[in-house]
């Protein structure tokens, strides 16, 4: 409940920032380290010519989210830390359209922005306080709190749980 309220407040603030960002695209800080996530397409904020680029610090700066859950790909319960998907979308000024997420291994999945905003997914960069390496499905992995809600225990959400994530393209078609 409390987290919902927080999230609402944060989202509101970020939405305001994002609106501001539309006018002042340069306000999205440019990455200093290795770029691990590239967001392209119809986005409201960028920090390069057509894309919003994020290094680990850039993602961490957006605000951390964390939950503990079991997954079908790991052993036992694990605590995942990352940036909320909704927060990221807000940060790049996305309100509608479709998310097209692609992995290093070219695995790709699409889903509506509306659902991404509403769901509790995070783009995890840490598992149990340790940064995800590429050999542990890193550097980024979209994870849902599967244990909290049975709706996440479905093949749809399993397919959206994309690991080795490195690109997101937003298309305006719903």
């Amino acid at each position, binding site marked *: 409940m409390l987290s919902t309220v927080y999230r609402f407040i944060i989202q509101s603030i970020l939405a305001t920032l994002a609106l501001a960002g539309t006018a002042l695209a340069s306000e999205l800080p440019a990455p200093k380290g290795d770029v691990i996530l590239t967001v392209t397409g119809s986005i409201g904020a960028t920090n390069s010519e057509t894309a919003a680029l994020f290094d680990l610090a850039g993602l961490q700066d957006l605000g951390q989210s964390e939950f503990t859950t079991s997954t*079908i*790909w*790991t*052993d036992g319960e694990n605590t995942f830390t990352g940036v909320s998907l909704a927060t990221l979308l807000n940060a790049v000024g996305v309100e509608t359209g479709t998310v097209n997420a692609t992995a*290093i*291994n070219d*695995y790709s999945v699409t889903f509506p922005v509306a659902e991404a905003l509403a769901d509790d997914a995070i783009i995890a960069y840490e598992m149990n306080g340790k940064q995800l*390496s*590429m*050999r*542990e*499905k890193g550097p980024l992995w979209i994870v849902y709190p599967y244990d909290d809600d*049975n709706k996440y*225990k*479905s*093949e749809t959400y*399993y*397919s959206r*749980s994309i*690991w*080795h994530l490195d690109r997101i393209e937003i298309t305006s078609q719903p």
Partner: protein
Amino acid sequence: MIKGLSPFLPRSTGRRPIFIGLIGTFIITMIAHFGIGVRTQLHDLATANSDSIQWNMSQAEVEHLAFLLATKSALGPAEGPLDDVRRRFNVLYSRISALEVGEQYSSLRQLSAPAASLDKMRRFLDRNAPLIDSDDATLRANLTAIVDDALRAHAAVRDFSLQGISHFSDLKDKSRREISRTLLSIALLSALLFLLLCLMVVILSRLNTTNQRRARQMELDGSRLSAIVSTSLDAIMVVSSDGRVIEFNGAAEEIFGYSQADVIGQNMADVIVPDHLRDAHLAGMKRYHTDGSTNVIGKGRFRIDAKRKSGDVFPAELSIQTARGEDGEIFVSYIRDISKEVAAENELREARDRALAGEKSKAQLLAVMSHEIRTPLNGLLGTMELLSQTDLTEQQTKYLGIMGKSGKLLLSHVNDVLDVSLLEAGHMEIKSSVFDLNKLIRDVVDSQSANAKSNANDLVFEGHAPEFLVNCDPVRVRQILLNLVGNAIKFTRNGRVTIETEPLEHSAYYEIRVIDDGVGIPEENIEKIFEDFITLDSTFGRKSEGTGLGLGIVRRIVDALDGSMGVASEVGQGSLFWVRLPIGLTQEVSSQTVEATESHAQSSEQVACPEVKPLDILMVEDNEINRVIASEFMALDGHNIVLAHDGRACA
């Protein structure tokens, strides 16, 4: 009676729904059981415990080949970038790790062949990971070896994915079969349950039909009953056990003058019980409630006084019965207003009393009158007797003879009337004695022979034995005989009158029959002839003199002697009169008694006049005429008479 409908319901009908209910419960339990199974299976389906397993496994091979390709292109003359090699290795590493750890592959990993394949993959990764992590030069130097190793490991990746396909399709088939079996079971049970429900519907509808029929019957019974109650001519009143009026029909309204609304709910004691019976009524009710004893309930009809609205008390006939009502016992009363009947009854009784009194005074009048007539008549006859002994002309003697005959006839008629009136007034005296009936009859025959001859009839006695002793009143028996014989002679010309006697077998009665072959009696008149003042025959009516009292007297005497009598007759053939009288004694009887009685009978019968010498006689007689006549007769015989009016005059 409508109450008793359910007992006739067969028991099995009552048990059947219970039985079906048990079966239904069992089936529902089974369905619930399978339902839970289905729910579990649905739950499993709802929360997929795997993503696309086949894709993941084939992806392992794809990623292995992608790594191989990247390594080969790095090995080529162009000396491709090593970053791609490293990335592809890491992707592959992640994939294989997922296969090793992922929950959805655990069942596959427990099989030996896939486990071996996976182990080979793991060893391939572990062998090459240090090389991939080393600097570019070392990696590039080992690229050829890595390619060879990857080529060798390729078979393991492929094997694992093929084994997975066969394993997971087996699992899927199994679970599909399980689901379909469960669904089939549920379908069967549902069908069974449906059939049971159909059966229940049939049973319930039949029960419903029965109940409806019963309800209809009850309604009919009820309306019939209410029609009976409302049309009853008797008042019907139903009272609760605490005395309040529950039902008051139309006849009750008419009889008591109350309307139904006036009395329903009122206490019966205040409404129809007359004041003088109220205490008794309340006491009776109380007694009934304490120990159930009652003088009236269920005791049939009885008379009691009841009260109308106007306060009039009237006689009523009442019958009370108890029945079971909704709130305990109720009393059902039928009440009939019998004031008219009682009035009629009283009228009738008064009329009877009046008639009896009239009858009695008539008889008394007759007795007195007869006596008053007889006394002067005796005076006339006596004087005529005296006159006949005086010197008379022939013409005077003739006239005197006519007068004497008329006088005697009148006397006999008066005697008859006197007899009847005495009998009617209950004054007839019966003096029983033992006598020979045959002798008595012979005497009658002797005395009536002349009379019979005058109508050219033979009078015969056909006795069965020389002597027939009976204990009876000889005077009355003689009277009976004289009347019957006289009658027979009267209605017979040139015929025969027969007297018969016969002791009746096996009874203490004897029968006397007087038979003639005269005119007979028409059947329609048979009953009448025993009535008083009856003279039937018109043909002989003129010739046969009589008051018509003869048979009436016989009937009264026979009754007084505890006997019976009757007649058989046919017109033109004659009549048979029979009289049955009690014998009154056993056959053994001392001859002494008989003789004594006979001598007495003789003395009373024959008025003998022995020669006596002249006497001095004091004669006391209050009637002057009698006194004169008697003294004249005695003087004619040569006696000396001193007359006195009464005892005092004698002195």
